């Protein structure tokens, strides 16, 4: 395993609204090692996209720190150095709206090349052609407009745009949730091949756990702005610890009996994710948790390290904290 490339410590991002403060991200700590894919999974409203945006510098964090290699990057993109901006790129969810419909693919890909490379402008076309080749699209596509491409092809253009600056860290914010499975499969395999080729590190955001199983080296589960469980993919699917993780796994529709056997049987999904304006006291999951106890409604559990690669945030695994809280 490589060394840590990105470390996020106690990251918070709050948004002020007329109805109260939305605590979209409320104390997330995670680290990504070089060359791995960290999967960040959660339901809509869990704050996973906000984490992506904060890391890529679109939002400025309210609190906490982000370290990239040796640099402290806890500031908005405008204040990040150009060499740093080059390093961290993002691919958005919907290629239909993340690509400018009035620009040709050449112009779209030329943008980041012009800004970040020292090449003379005359050489654009070659670089654009090389980029298209890298992501497996025909070179003629540089003269097309986004509307002329299919969903999967558009997403590959968005990937090419992210790779144009030669980054080492790419944030993928649900890159395939707008695509059909047959197209998704192609985009995902291409992404994995590109990762090997360019030694990329991915932060992969999705709500699809089965996709995560095939893509990620480790997985972090997010619920209402906080992480519930972090583990390597193997451990995670073999023995999910957090009740929310088990609930998520049990809800996945499967296509074979072997898969069905991997789903936890003892738990059924219930309840809905509460509003991030009114986060319940204690453990934010206690309203839906089938294993909740008295303490869960009062004390928010802290992240406990089970072993080197695995940590979970649940009172079920903190005998000591349960004891001390009862005493209070």
């Amino acid at each position, binding site marked *: 395993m490589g060394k840590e490339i990105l470390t996020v410590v106690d990251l918070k991002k709050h948004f002020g609204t007329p109805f109260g403060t939305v605590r979209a991200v409320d104390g997330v700590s995670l680290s990504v090692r070089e060359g791995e894919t960290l999967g960040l999974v959660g339901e809509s409203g869990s704050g996973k996209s906000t984490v992506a945006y904060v890391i890529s510098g679109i939002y400025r964090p309210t609190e906490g720190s982000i370290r990239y290699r040796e640099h402290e990057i806890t500031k908005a993109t405008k204040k990040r150095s150009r060499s740093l901006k080059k390093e961290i790129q993002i691919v958005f969810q919907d290629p239909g709206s993340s690509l400018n419909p009035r620009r040709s693919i050449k112009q779209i890909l030329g943008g980041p090349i012009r800004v970040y490379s020292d090449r003379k402008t005359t050489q654009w076309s070659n670089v654009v052609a090389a980029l298209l080749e890298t992501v497996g699209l025909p070179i003629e596509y540089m003269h097309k407009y986004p509307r002329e491409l299919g969903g999967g092809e558009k997403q590959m253009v968005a990937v090419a745009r992210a790779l144009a600056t030669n980054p080492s860290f790419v944030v993928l914010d649900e890159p395939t949730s707008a695509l059909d499975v047959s197209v998704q499969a192609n985009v995902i395999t291409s992404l994995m091949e590109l990762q090997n080729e360019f030694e990329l590190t991915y932060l992969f955001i999705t709500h699809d756990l089965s996709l995560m199983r095939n893509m990620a080296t480790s997985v972090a589960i997010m619920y209402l702005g906080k992480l519930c469980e972090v583990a390597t993919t193997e451990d995670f699917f073999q023995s999910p610890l957090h009740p929310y993780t088990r609930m998520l796994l049990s809800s*996945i529709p499967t296509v074979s009996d072997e898969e069905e056997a991997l789903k936890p049987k003892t738990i059924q999904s219930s309840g809905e994710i509460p509003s991030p304006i009114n986060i319940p006291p204690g453990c934010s999951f206690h309203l839906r948790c089938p294993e909740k106890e008295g303490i869960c409604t009062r004390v928010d559990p802290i992240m406990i390290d089970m072993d080197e690669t695995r940590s979970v945030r649940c009172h079920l695994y903190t005998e000591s904290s349960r004891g001390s809280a009862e005493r209070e």
Partner: protein
Amino acid sequence: MTRELLQVHNLRVGYKVFDGMLQVLDGIDITLCGSERIGLVGETGCGKTTTAKTVAGVLSIPPASILAGDVYCGGSLLVKGGFSRFKRDFARRVSMIYQDPTAALNPVFTVGAQLMDAIKHSTFGGQLSAGAIRQRALKAFEDVALPDPERILKSYPVQLSGGMRQRVCIAMALAVDSEILIADEPTTSLDVTIQDQVLRLLGQLVEDRETATILISHSLGLVRTWTEHVYVMYGGTLMEAARTQSLFENPKHPYTQGLIAAIPKLTGGGISRGIPGRIPDYLNPPKGCRFSPRCPNAMPVCDSERPAPIDVEPDHWVKCHLYQEG
């Protein structure tokens, strides 16, 4: 399993556009028997929703037009020879749950008012007093496990969460005691945990009422857990149909096989490269099998000749030249 409730025979539907006629549906044959649950799977743009809309009688004509085909519902003819004879009584036999509950509900009326309207205009609605309609509405909300039905009755759609809105739509579809329920991607806009809850609930309700159901979805996983019989659709034609178990254990059509291989599995082991290419251009659809331009096993005959359904097992047919005898 007893009587045939709905029969769609050789249905062809097109959409008129500036450049000509989009030949979307091309020969759809579906049979739905009493209290059966069937699934219609396919990718975006394969005509699933057009099929549903035609059967439910909510297809907007024009721009759409029914080019050919018959649709029978409980012995009466809804569409004959491409001519829609859709009447109000038929509309009452079929109810539909739409993909996006936010768009399906009118934002300026309370969900209670919309539900009570639906009940008032149902087969039995005419004989009910306002109080009785209200009671039925409350009962319908209770059935779909919505907490505090009195309060929900007075809520506007914006005040409810996505899962609750879809429950309201399910309540509306089931409160009118229709014989056929068409659920068009009922959980696509919902999270997995909510999807699981909504489908479990819907399954329970249609089982109790013995409503025949057509589940339309792009998710093979959903269809596998939820239906008894599956139709696989591609480019406006049916490719394969079988009992659900037999389809997933023994998929025959290259498209079905490709689709199943493309799904990321919980067991890991990577995923395939998917199916190359795009859905056919409906203005000029391929003359033979509509899947042939993308098919890994395409033969010369596939480009020119349309395959006929071939029985490969009892209750399992496939439209593919690969299985043609001789």
